[in-house]
């Protein structure tokens, strides 16, 4: 399948006084899997629907394969869309749903049938062609929606939280399958989710959105370990934002003057893990809980700020004996300490 790049240029959309998209620009490479990640109301679905053509913009441009599609109606854009609630036609069976885009393109019936069955096979739904939509499980509906979106060889795939209605195990299996489908077809994909773990697992790059803006766009590793803003740091996982002065270098060489972001899992109770140039902090244990694969400790620093520390159960022999009220020291290696420019605490 041929893949196309997408360019979003200074896109703006307001609903009354509410700014849903605030001057958003974005370059998506041909064949890339890009995720728009953010909390509800961050503008991620609005941006996706703008690319799809269902949201009319106030300002800005959208280019697909170098061609301006800003004013092209949705039915002329040739995009495969998977909706959050699947949007399968309840009055058609599985096969008729998948054949629908082909029938619109006046593709001969025999050809259309073969291609629809191929698409169903791709999503592992052989033998389901004649089923009614109502007789399918959530995961099966998801697959029909995928088959229907790829069957007409769209130029781009757009997915709006396609897995949010599925239970956890199925969701993880489908994440893998959607990514595999993307790799097989090489089709440019924009994926919307509010689940940071899903975004980290699936994406080539993640655009983290907050109140109508893109806060950071980067690879999963960089977005996680090198967040540009406090919002990104906290949205991507359990992040401790530590003000200047509350941590020290283990070797005492340098007083740390910047605001630091240290993930909960970067801490250890044993200084040996952190190395001589690592950082140390000390506080009173306020709460501890066992979560299976790790222990979660809450320390209150002398500055009264609380810090969350996650210790892998295999390295936490002593955790069970710690009592609230006790003073505890925690250590993190220098590589896991990240300064956030301009962040306020």
């Amino acid at each position, binding site marked *: 399948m041929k893949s196309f790049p997408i360019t979003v240029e200074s896109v703006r959309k307001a609903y009354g006084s509410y700014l849903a998209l605030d001057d958003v620009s974005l370059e998506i490479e041909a064949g890339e899997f890009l995720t728009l990640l953010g909390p509800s109301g961050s503008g991620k679905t609005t941006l996706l629907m703008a690319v799809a053509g269902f949201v009319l913009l106030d300002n800005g441009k959208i280019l697909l394969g170098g061609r301006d599609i800003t004013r092209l*109606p*949705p039915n002329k854009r040739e995009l495969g869309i998977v*909706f959050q609630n699947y949007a399968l*036609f309840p009055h058609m069976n599985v096969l*008729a749903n998948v054949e629908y885009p082909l029938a*619109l393109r006046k593709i001969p019936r025999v050809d259309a049938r073969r291609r629809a069955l191929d698409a169903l096979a791709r999503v592992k739904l052989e033998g389901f062609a004649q089923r009614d939509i109502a007789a399918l499980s959530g995961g099966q509906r998801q697959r029909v929606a995928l088959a229907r979106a790829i069957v007409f060889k769209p130029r781009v795939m757009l997915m709006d939280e396609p897995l949010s209605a599925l239970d956890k195990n199925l969701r993880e299996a489908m994440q893998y399958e959607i990514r595999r489908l993307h790799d097989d077809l090489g089709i440019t994909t924009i994926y919307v989710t509010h689940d940071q773990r899903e975004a980290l697992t699936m994406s080539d790059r993640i655009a983290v959105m907050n109140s109508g803006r893109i806060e950071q766009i980067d690879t999963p590793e960089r977005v996680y370990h090198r967040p540009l803003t406090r919002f990104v740091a906290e949205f991507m996982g359990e992040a401790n934002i530590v003000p200047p002065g509350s941590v020290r270098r283990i070797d005492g060489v340098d007083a740390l003057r910047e605001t630091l972001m240290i993930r909960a899992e970067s801490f250890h109770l044993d200084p040996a893990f952190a190395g001589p140039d690592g950082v140390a902090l000390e506080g009173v244990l306020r709460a501890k809980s066992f979560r299976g694969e790790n222990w979660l400790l809450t320390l209150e620093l002398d500055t009264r700020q609380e810090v969350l520390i996650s210790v892998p159960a295999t390295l936490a022999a002593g955790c069970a004996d710690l009592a609230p009220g006790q003073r505890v020291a925690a250590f993190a290696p220098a590589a896991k300490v990240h300064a956030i420019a301009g962040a306020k605490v």
Partner: protein
Amino acid sequence: MDPALAADARRERRFFLSLSLPALVIVGSAAILPILWIVRQSFLTTAGEYSVGNYEKVLSSGLTWSALLTTLELSIGTLAVCMLLGLPLALALASARPRVANLLMAFIMLPLWTSILVRTYGWLVLLRRDGLVNAVLTGSGLTTEPLPLVYNFTGTLIGMVHYMLPLFVLPVYAAMRDIDPNLTRAAASMGAGLGLAIRTVILPLSAGGIVSGSMIVFIYTLGFFITPAVLGGGKVNPISIRIERTLSTFQDWGAASVLGLLLLVLLALVGVTFWAARLLLTQNKLGVAHA
């Protein structure tokens, strides 16, 4: 099962069933008994003997069949115009923002709150030769002569459509409003323009509401009396008017009863037809599946 508890459960069921008793008594005495009385009447001659003479007389009369034809023409005509005006209206309502839709809905329901007699005479004032509509038409030079808009089939149809349109739009609008807007978006994303999306998604999915609306229109209009009587000017004579005339002019209760039963049979046929259509649609057996 504990017999005492079972008795309690039975008593509760009986209590709730007994709540329908007053309604049953009224329907039984005010609808079913009169119908049985009409059936008996239809077999009675003026001399008070039982015979099928009334049936022979009514069914061999050309007036009966022309009245039947007029009745069907009025019902089908009303339904056709209701569809032509009502389907786009329902679609507009269903795709409007909720506040706008509620406002429009209020305007649509407004005529239902005024008496049919008032509305019918209102149309008379508007449509007659020197009425408002003709004054505008001739005054603006669109027509040289006033159009014959009332005391004929056209006038009757206008009055009946005006009465039936809200009742047709309601179930259609309800069905269209319940269609997930993402379905039309999905259709568009796959290449369907608005016309195709309406034909392949919206109409099939609101078919149940359209059938309900059509059934309401048909069943109401089959028995319409006031509108043809006032706006038809004696030239539009459906069965309802034949019945009234048979009674008021000839005092022929037997013949009138036969006509009444004829109307009843017609209603039953229409009812069964629409009911079957609905059943087929809900089971998706009509082949609406393919684009």
